[in-house]
């Protein structure tokens, strides 16, 4: 087993771990981490498995793709984290409503005024 294959296998495992984390965890921050790990796994696979020219480093095209991917992942993580914090502030917890843990806690919305009549 060559070194590259070890990294390819690790990449697949990392991808699946990230996928499971994204799907399985309810906490938003872990979901964001999971998406990042999915990306890292793919990047590993791409660079480790691409055939290379003798006497040179990794195939430059996947390298450029991975560089692009890392930047895009950083941008998406930033937006996702920003949104997650707004979810925390606006709906009282780092969870999406359907998969909030436990019985739904009593909402403590600041009531600015008594609800007016709705048409």
């Amino acid at each position, binding site marked *: 087993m060559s070194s590259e294959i070890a990294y390819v296998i690790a990449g697949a495992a990392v991808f699946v771990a990230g996928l499971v984390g994204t799907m399985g965890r309810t906490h938003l921050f872990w979901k964001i981490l999971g998406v990042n790990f999915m990306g890292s796994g793919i990047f590993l696979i791409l660079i480790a498995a691409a055939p290379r020219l003798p006497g040179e480093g990794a195939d430059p095209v996947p390298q450029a793709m991975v560089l692009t991917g890392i930047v895009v992942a950083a941008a998406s993580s930033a937006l996702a984290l920003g949104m997650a914090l707004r979810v925390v502030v606006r709906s009282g917890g780092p969870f999406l409503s359907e998969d909030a843990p436990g019985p739904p806690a009593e909402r403590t919305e600041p009531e600015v005024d008594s*609800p007016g009549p709705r048409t």
Partner: protein
Amino acid sequence: MSTLVWALDVSVAVLLVALVARAMLTRDLLEAVVLFIAVGLTLSLAWVRLGAPDVALAEAALGAGVTGALFLNAFQRLARTGPGASDAGPDYVIDRGSGSGCGVLRVATVGAAGVLAVTLMTILVGIPLRDAMLAQEVRTSLEQTGVSNPVTGVLLGFRAYDTLFEVCALVVAMVAVWSLDRGNRNFARDPKELREDPVLETLTRLVAPVAGVLAVYLVWSGSSGPGGAFQAAALLAGVGVLLTASGLMRPITSGAPAVRVLGTMGLALFVCVGVGLMPWTGSFLAYPEGWGYAITLVLEGVLTLSIAVILLELFIDVPAAPEVDPRLATVDPTGDPLGRTLTLDGALIRSPEEDE
């Protein structure tokens, strides 16, 4: 010797998987975030081993560095937000959810994940090795791009269009974060307290000039060796974070015209160069014969500055979620564009946010 190297590679690979698995399974958010940074650093080791030093630099600076700092910053904001944050200790940073009473489900999930992973590995390992055709083509045509680092050649020459939209994605993320509401932007601590930290200040004074020189060097050497705009920009953004955290620089504000101009300048210049040369070259993003090196260098310089500002801006603005905004309770549930209190029949109607 080669066995030793092989053992190193395998242990790096195993370490990676272990770190990721632990990060995904732990219930302590701080641990997960720290593990994320550790994964980034281990990955950059893997990139070096795989002969991809450019990626290693980017991973360490951007993947582990800037993104890690972003996670830590957001973590701190989260830790101070929960209902128990003030007295009973951290609340949202320990995930107590989703576990209890569904052991069967968890076993099933892990089993399914195992099957999926093994299937994926089998497929990947089963891919027959082909010739490195595209790498060969890159080597043959690299001279025409004017640079000698093949990765830079691909990024700013052959696939410059992707890079243009990668910069665009950063700008989109920045604008999107601007479009979220922002409250207190003093992310770390009290500015007064900050000034009383001579150690951090000294470090910043020492490191900032070195890092600045290093960033210029990375841009400069990116055309022939590892390095380039994105790595240098991440480094500069790191300096910005240090400067802000040590109180030597006020947090940049998204409203400031300078930030807007600097943040979008790289994208604007990229588009202008791409379109502006079309009368001579006939296609978008093509450079005239012999001008490749000069254009690439100028473009990289401006992009570096622009991306650094964007990253710093994201670092500061992402965690700036306001405390509960009382005006949110008065927003029209139908999505009134003004978010104002509605006046129907002269009566104030305030509809508190409802959940489904």
